[in-house]
């Protein structure tokens, strides 16, 4: 297949090495980190208004985290060797060390926090349920069925401590993804010390938007009224983080424009041609400025609940589209120009191949399937939580 090239590319550069699957990878890990940070708002920062989404955010983070390595695995030329990254890691490699950051986040933070938070419910359900469900819950108790007030108090304190560790870990998880790109000095589109920070804030934006949408959608599915105080608070946090994220990206852009180093002419041409739609139209105008304006409008004008819900729904969808476009522009955009700065290549996305659109779509649907199973197994809804066995966990502060 002939790949259209404009100008001069080094002969080995014509073919793109990282495909849509590598676009998915930072998108998915971003959702994980963002969802966790939203959950920590309630737990650590005592923002009681977002409590209805606390457990849902944790389960969302877990569902996406379980899928996060799959795009990488599919992309590898030799997936059967991927465990070597853990067995014989190369310590100077950002990618190798990310494997351990991922494992730390999955095993030491997310799974432990979810287990501690649900332990009381799991024990109760292991006694209440029948058949295979009973067996599943018994396994999930990990042999610990003590739900005395003291045990629950320990769970609570330990959970709080893990969330405290979890916040920097979530920053580390996605900041590190940014570092994987930002540390490639050969590529001026990626190489920037701001890259990890931009990735962290864009992760928070996407995770918060995703949980907000999942909360709205699930409430509708269950025929329950949406807690508008919760929704307004989430939207407000989305706005704050979005403004920081956008400011950082604009700072990076201004710096590049003003410095105008040897790569600038090439990158500028790319933004005005090949990336015009995905970056200027989709990422900046539709995916950033519009949702910011929509949510900001709510801060100044008192709108009815129905109107607010619609605005939040639209803003959330546009936000996710914008953040996906941002990942696309980083990963794909970073490979469209020659390192000689004299030419441009084209990304031709396949459909039903190993790195095509079809597996990417399946990988984007998969976390929702996992989330559905998790929600069935560990209901995150406050009203469906079983009553505490002995006494409620210690009350948390009020916002």
């Amino acid at each position, binding site marked *: 297949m002939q790949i259209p090239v404009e100008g*001069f590319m080094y002969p080995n550069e014509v073919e793109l090495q990282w495909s849509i699957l590598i676009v998915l990878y930072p998108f998915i890990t971003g959702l994980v980190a963002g969802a966790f940070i939203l959950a920590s708002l309630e737990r650590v920062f005592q923002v009681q208004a977002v409590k209805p989404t606390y457990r849902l955010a944790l389960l969302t983070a877990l569902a996406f985290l379980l899928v996060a390595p799959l795009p*990488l695995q599919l992309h590898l*030329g030799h997936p059967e060797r991927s465990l070597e990254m853990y067995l014989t*890691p190369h310590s100077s490699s950002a990618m190798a060390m990310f494997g351990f950051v991922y494992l730390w986040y999955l095993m030491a933070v997310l799974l432990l926090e979810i287990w501690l938070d649900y332990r009381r419910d799991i024990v109760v359900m292991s006694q209440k349920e029948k058949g295979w469900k009973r067996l599943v819950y018994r396994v999930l108790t990990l042999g610990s069925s003590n739900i005395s007030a003291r045990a629950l108090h320990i769970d609570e304190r330990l959970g709080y401590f893990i969330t405290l560790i979890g916040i920097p870990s979530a920053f580390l998880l996605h900041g590190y993804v940014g570092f994987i790109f930002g540390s*490639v000095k050969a*590529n001026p589109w990626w190489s920037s010390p701001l890259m990890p920070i931009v990735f962290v804030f864009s992760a928070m934006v996407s995770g918060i938007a995703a949980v907000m949408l999942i909360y709205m959608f699930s409430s509708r599915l269950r025929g329950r009224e949406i807690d508008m105080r919760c929704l307004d608070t989430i939207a407000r946090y989305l706005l704050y983080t979005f403004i920081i994220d956008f400011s950082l990206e604009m700072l990076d852009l201004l710096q590049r424009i003003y410095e105008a180093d*040897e790569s600038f002419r090439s990158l500028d041409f790319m933004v005005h041609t090949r990336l015009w739609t995905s970056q200027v139209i989709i990422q900046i105008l539709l995916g950033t400025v519009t949702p910011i304006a929509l949510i900001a409008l709510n801060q100044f004008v008192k709108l009815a609940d129905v109107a607010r819900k619609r605005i939040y729904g639209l803003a959330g969808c546009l936000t996710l589209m914008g953040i996906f476009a941002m990942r696309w522009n980083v990963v794909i955009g970073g490979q469209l120009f020659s390192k000689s700065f004299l030419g441009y290549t084209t990304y031709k996305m396949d459909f039903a191949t190993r790195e095509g659109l079809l597996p990417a779509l399946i990988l984007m649907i998969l976390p929702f399937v996992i989330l559905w199973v998790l929600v069935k197994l560990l209901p995150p809804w406050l009203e469906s939580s079983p009553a505490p066995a002995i006494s409620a966990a210690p009350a948390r502060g009020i916002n």
Partner: protein
Amino acid sequence: MDITRRRLLGLMPAAAVAWKYVLAGTPEASPNYRLTDHWWGMLMDITKCIGCGTCVRACAEENDVPDGYYRTWVERYHRDEWKIERPEVESPDGGKHGYLHEPAEGGKNFFVPKLCNHCAESPCTQVCPVGATFDAPDGVVLIDKKYCLGCRYCIQACPYGCRFLNPKTNTAEKCTLCYHRITKGLTTACCEVCPTGARQLADLKNPKDPIHEFLRTHSVQVLKPHMATGAKVFYNGMDGSVR
């Protein structure tokens, strides 16, 4: 030494293992080659390169390089008198078949042969998640194909576009400086066939290598020195427009 039946039986398992390696095509050993005695690089004399592409063809044949990928290639530059920052460059099929069409008129035209720079501080080695890409003690950057994951991070990290993913092996690949040849005292395939001597393999640790005299008496450069990769392919007569 007398070989008894008992000793012969004892040697058979070892012989079986050795035979397995012979069948697997294990490269011939180089018993006299000492890794620490060498520090390999290459000298490219742009003033001598005629862009015939013989080096590209020899490399492809010697190393079974798949079509459309290049361990070495030749670029033709054309720059107008003062437009040093905007040269016109071409490398159709990596310059494999030479440049039969006339270059643009006016300005300056010249050829630039390229290959892996075997950097002393190679970014590709730094980013490899499993160490499949490594710096040999003799200064050659090599890839262990049996270990490479095919993640392609090294390809992204190379500032010179020297690496590619071999579609046959699904592993990263690039110039090895014909390691199978230089460890036997031969030169690389590309240097051997170059009709003008524009390419010269250089052993920077060998005080008798003529490279030392050349480097002392000529103005040589490396590609993209601002990348600080410790490139060991030196270019004589390189124009400022080359990148």
